[in-house]
């Protein structure tokens, strides 16, 4: 069976809308209905955040959602239980994203096995470096048919980007600026130059831009340079303390797609 991420990019190569959402936020059992509403409203792919107490690459909003989720009792065990039958309802690609330690404690192989069993398509672990991935985990990822998705930042050298392109087999996550998640500025000229540089490299893998994508305007700009973009912090804010997930998600996504 082919991978859902690869199918998505084969069918659609522009304006791919992806959202990031922390599992267990705002309430412990919300993830399934968030996925349903996202799919219904035309979201192309979802990154499901696995909460961690010390998310060093994230800003205050995502850290806050992590804290709430942990306090709600979210763990990987709970998450896999919630996602057990998810493929009966959801057919868009799903990616798990989170820090390495909870995965390491769960057991990397157990984690990959259970993620695969739920129908997860890919994994993003920002603090699992390329060296450790290649020497210890790459074969395991392949065995369980999960795509490992790497990040590229404005500081990543051309040589390293080429290596990442070789190691990747789904898409490459382009971090928009030298910043943690949740930046508030609009996209600057220097960032557009960086996007152009990546675009000009003509990588084999599709590219998706994330960090600081927060509304229609930043989404559209990002999509000028990439196959799509990921919205995290702004989505977390939109559903924080939501009393009506269905409505809040629909109106948030409509504004992006307007």
């Amino acid at each position, binding site marked *: 069976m082919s991978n859902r991420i690869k199918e998505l990019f084969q069918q659609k190569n522009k304006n791919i809308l992806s959202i990031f959402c922390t599992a267990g936020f705002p309430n412990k059992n919300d993830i399934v209905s968030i996925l349903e509403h996202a799919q219904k409203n035309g979201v192309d792919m979802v990154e499901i955040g696995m909460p961690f107490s010390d998310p060093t690459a994230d800003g205050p909003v995502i850290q806050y959602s992590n804290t709430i989720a942990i306090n709600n009792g979210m763990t990987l065990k709970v998450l896999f239980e919630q996602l057990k039958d998810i493929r009966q309802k959801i057919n868009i690609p799903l990616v798990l994203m989170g820090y390495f330690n*909870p995965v390491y404690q769960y057991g990397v192989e157990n984690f990959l096995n259970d993620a695969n069993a739920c129908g997860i398509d890919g994994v993003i672990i*920002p*603090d699992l470096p390329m060296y450790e991935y290649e020497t210890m985990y790459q074969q395991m990822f392949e065995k369980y048919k999960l795509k490992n998705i790497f990040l590229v930042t404005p500081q990543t050298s051309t040589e390293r980007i080429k290596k990442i392109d070789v190691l990747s087999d789904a898409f490459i996550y382009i971090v928009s600026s030298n910043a943690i998640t949740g930046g508030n500025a609009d996209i600057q000229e220097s960032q557009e130059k960086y996007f152009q540089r990546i675009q000009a490299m003509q990588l084999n893998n599709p590219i998706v831009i994330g960090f600081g994508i927060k509304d229609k305007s930043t989404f559209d700009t990002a999509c000028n340079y990439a196959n799509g973009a990921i919205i995290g912090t702004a989505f977390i804010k939109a559903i924080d303390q939501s009393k009506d997930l269905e409505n809040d998600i629909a109106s948030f996504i409509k504004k992006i797609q307007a």
Partner: protein
Amino acid sequence: MSENINSKYQVNEKGYYGQFGGAYIPEMLHPNIEELQQKYLEIIYDENFQKEFQQLLKDYVGRPTPLYFASRLSEKFQTQIYLKREDLCHTGAHKVNNTIGQILLAKRLGKTRIIAETGAGQHGVATATVCALMNLPCVVYMGEVDIQRQAPNVKRMQLLGAEVRPATSGSKTLKDATNEAMRDWIANPTDTHYIIGSVVGPHPFPDMVARFQSVISEEIKQQLNEKTGKENPDFVVACVGGGSNAAGAFYHFLDDEKVQLVAVEAAGHGVHSGKSAATTQLGRIGVLHSSKTLFMQTEDGQVVEPHSISAGLDYPGIGPMHANLFDTKRAHFLSATDDEALKAVQLLAKLEGIIPALESAHAIAVLDRIGAKQNDVVVLNLSGRGDKDLDTYIREII
């Protein structure tokens, strides 16, 4: 200080001590860490670097610090106790050995801005001090809780021209200050150097900080030889927060297995009280602050918030070098409670006229249980002085 060390207790070329260490960094930090990994040894063993470093340690820090035979303390514990007086370093603790080294390195890397994390405030003060010395802007992250309990150090940093930024997430202590400093570095990768304050963080920080602190054991060897005719003590005792003063005190004795290394952790209210920072007893292997090491965590891998009366030991983990020393049983890990540390403060003050830092007091507190005999030579690394803890001493003791 010599570049080549061939020891099974030292870091290997991949940045690991046994199974511990590595550089589990997000991609955003990759260029910075790679640059450091490639250049740090070349830079710090450059002749000019060494000249400047040694000169500053001598004239500015006040090294060598004395190795003092504590006769009344020795009498009390029926053994031969020498105190390595890191408390007499400029700024009041061993931390400055590292910040001098790292600021010289930062300058050679062309960095123009310095950030640091701090717990007790000693590393923050030591960083603010060298930034003043080298005329570089300095931002120190400090947990909100620590800002309150170490208020005099906050004022000292400000007087030295540093900006102190509160870390308001999590337990609002050292681990959270470290998170904030990492975030700052991610946002400012080109102009900024992050002076980590202990032997923690991604490779090469643990090894680099240990090398800068290794001057402690280098001096101990020489001073002990002058005083007793032999270079090696029977015991070296040091407290462990992240582990930098212990790393420095142990460094040149690692391969002399006859020297018993004793590391002392903070037991807080008691190891199993739920309010403790005794990492080796309560922790498991995992990845925290970009290093695979031992730290306190829940079953599903969330970091557990530690407790110690001493802000400098209030950290959920230990550095990878110490994790390996524990794992291989090369060092013996003991712990002391808040109350035991406070008693040790009084003991040293009354017997020797020295008021130690709360961190260092943890090392003194275990002197009755290390198993030293009458003629054994015990070197205790007195990592810092107690000025910063006076508020706590007034509240808890006097």
